[in-house]
């Protein structure tokens, strides 16, 4: 039991590091995590695209993709290793392409005709075109199959009306894949169809969502009589649910994680705060909590190492990796609030110029509720663990066989 690379891994790491040192951008994009792109300067995307193109040349854009599609023809662990080394040099920029290359394009590759694949895979890989994924809807949330955005056949076209929500990147994406309701008379899972669309099509309107944390990392996307030729259909009519499962299956293994705030950050804060009895770090109640946070953070780190070990041994890691977000999100909220309360009355101040650590904890307090929800709520993730890992029964379903139009949906 150790942390060393296998000979092959070590060799690959050396090769990757050398290439990165030779090619990594001097002034990189700062959007490395999805959702972060919102607030960045205009030049950022250009930098990210340039770096993506460079990686494509080097065969590092999609390491696990087959060579004939411009991929690296490599293994998952090689992809992880490159990611680690890329993070070290801080090349960044991945955020723009994550969803397109991780979910949308693989779906196109699996269901589109050759001409379409030839047209889109290369540009996406080289970062020339950005894709977004249009699944969630206001009435749906975690229930993707509840999509009610309608597509009605009109000659060789389909006419789409409705609304999608929580779409990241919609404001800069060139293309997207969208799941729509083509047969409301069928049960919810049996009346959906998937299309790829040009985000510049007439009738598409993108509105940013204003978050309680201040930022806007997601969008609402409105469809008004948007015409899509049937040739842009992915998979069979009314078979979109199966297609969407492929999309979600391709969801990229999250070995990253963390908000930057952890036990060491709050330890720094405590050391800087003087109480009647010395530094706040000497408070025994705080020290006990600090130990718990340390054990959680390190436990997650080493859990990721175990996942990588599985990859390194050619195994496929299971959904156990979903414990990461449950712990990280809850801990961020708890830790940020503990820090704010440790500052006592002063904790209310949210001005980076004045609050300790540039108000990082106040920021964490306001963003953590989103982390507990985005990409699956705590409750959904616990269901996933209970059902897929522990093999407990699924929740009782009342929506399987009802015609979609008759399914209770609330307002």
């Amino acid at each position, binding site marked *: 039991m150790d942390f060393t690379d296998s000979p092959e891994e070590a060799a690959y790491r050396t090769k990757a590091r050398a290439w990165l040192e030779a090619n990594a951008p001097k002034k990189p994009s700062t959007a490395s995590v999805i959702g972060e792109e919102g607030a960045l300067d205009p030049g950022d995307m250009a930098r990210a695209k340039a770096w993506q193109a460079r990686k494509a040349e080097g065969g590092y854009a999609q390491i696990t993709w087959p060579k004939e599609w411009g991929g690296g023809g490599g293994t998952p662990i090689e992809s992880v290793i490159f990611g680690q080394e890329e993070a070290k040099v801080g090349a960044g920029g991945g955020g723009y392409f994550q969803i397109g290359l991780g979910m949308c394009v693989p779906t196109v590759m699996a269901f589109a005709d050759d001409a379409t694949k030839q047209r889109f895979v290369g540009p996406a890989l080289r970062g020339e075109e950005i894709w977004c994924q249009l699944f969630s809807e206001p009435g749906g949330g975690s229930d993707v199959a509840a999509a009610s955005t309608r597509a009605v056949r009109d000659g060789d076209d389909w006419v789409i009306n409705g609304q999608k929500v929580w779409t990241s990147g919609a404001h800069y994406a060139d293309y997207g894949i969208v799941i729509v309701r083509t047969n409301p008379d069928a049960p919810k899972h049996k009346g959906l169809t998937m299309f790829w669309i040009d985000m510049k099509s007439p009738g598409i309107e993108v509105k940013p969502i204003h978050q309680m944390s201040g930022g806007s990392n997601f969008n609402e996307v409105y469809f008004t009589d948007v015409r899509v030729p049937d040739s842009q259909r992915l998979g069979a009519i009314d078979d979109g649910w199966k297609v969407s499962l492929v999309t979600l299956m391709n969801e990229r293994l999250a070995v990253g994680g963390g908000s930057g705030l952890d036990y060491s950050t709050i330890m720094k804060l405590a050391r800087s705060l003087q109480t009647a009895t010395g530094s706040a770090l000497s408070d025994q109640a705080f020290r006990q909590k600090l130990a718990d946070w340390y054990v959680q953070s390190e436990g997650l780190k080493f859990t990721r190492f175990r996942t990588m070990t599985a990859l390194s041994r050619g195994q496929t890691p299971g959904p156990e990796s979903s414990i990461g977000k449950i712990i990280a999100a809850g801990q961020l909220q708890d830790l940020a609030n503990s820090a*704010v309360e440790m500052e006592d009355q002063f904790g209310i101040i949210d001005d980076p110029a004045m609050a300790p650590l540039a108000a990082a904890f106040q920021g964490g307090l306001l963003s953590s*509720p989103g982390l507990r929800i985005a990409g699956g709520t705590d409750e959904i993730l616990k269901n996933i663990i209970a059902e897929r890992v522990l093999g407990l029964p699924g929740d009782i379903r009342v929506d399987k066989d009802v015609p979609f139009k008759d399914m209770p949906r609330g307002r």
Partner: protein
Amino acid sequence: MNFDYSDDQKFLKTEARKFLDAACTPAVVRGVLDDPARSYDEPLWRRIAEQGWLGAAIPEQYNGLGLGRIELCAIAEELGRACAPVPFASTVYFLAEALMLAGSDEQQARLLPKIAAGELIGAFATSEGPGAYSEAGIQARVEGGKLTGVKVPVTDGDVADVAVVLAKEAGRSGLYLVELAGGGVTRQTLKTLDPTRGVAKLSFSGAAAERLGPAGEGAALAEAVMDRAAVLLAFEQLGGAERSLEMAKSYALERYAFGRQIGSYQAIKHKLADIYVKNELARSNAYYGAWALNAGAAELPVAAAAARVAASEAFWFASKENIQTHGGMGFTWEVDAHLYYRRSRQLALVAGAPAVWKERLVSQLERRNAA
């Protein structure tokens, strides 16, 4: 056994709710939230003054209604429920209570009627920086009736007319009344977690300061004022916690997932049950605090600490799990859930964080036990 609001108090509470449902709509709260230039809603403040609430617990001789503290608790609960963006706590729970606790007849006669009339906004200034303040650490100094030093943060300090300031004179702590419109005072409005309430940094350079209460007892007086305020704040927290539960409940009933109301899933049902249990414990502890405050009982320090600890925990839990129950919508600016999340932090911090009150509670228990 008579451990609840009386019928008259319930009537007052119901009337207060009706009034605030109309006068303090979410739109009013958001008016302050979305406008950095405003730190409270003046029209609402005026109408609250017209209701006589500012003088509810002020004796009639000073133009107050001369009601008991229980009535004030009932009003506080409704203000918390409405997330009211007004300097009520600073003016009534802190300044007025400080005056009634330690003010001379002259000071009371001069200031209490103005408070009752809504002509005077108050503030209470103890903190000078990050971390809980301690008497030993107080830097603010008074010499020859002039105050020098910095207080930050001071809730409503940006709009207050008079602040009660904890400072030291000849090495001993005292409470001092300072007219903020007077010379030697500069105010800086601060960005905070709860933009629906105003907070400032106050810098004093020789501002005129008039002592409130005996010399050398400033820290003890400040604690006594905080005990009173803690009970009243607990009722605001309780109101906010119950409103958060109602929001979560109605969303759980109207929102569907997988063809069912999300409120039919045990994960949501039990989450809301947990909120309910914490809220009930908070209410019971708050009632005990109200009794002790109203009766001027010796148990007040313990009762106030218990009320504050229970209410802070309940509101924090209810407000964050209300957002969680709303899912993605709860994280948006448009949904009101975050207003209560922010207010729960403001109320938990304004009189000192829960950990400080837990420590105060336990040292009181030790004393009681030793006695």
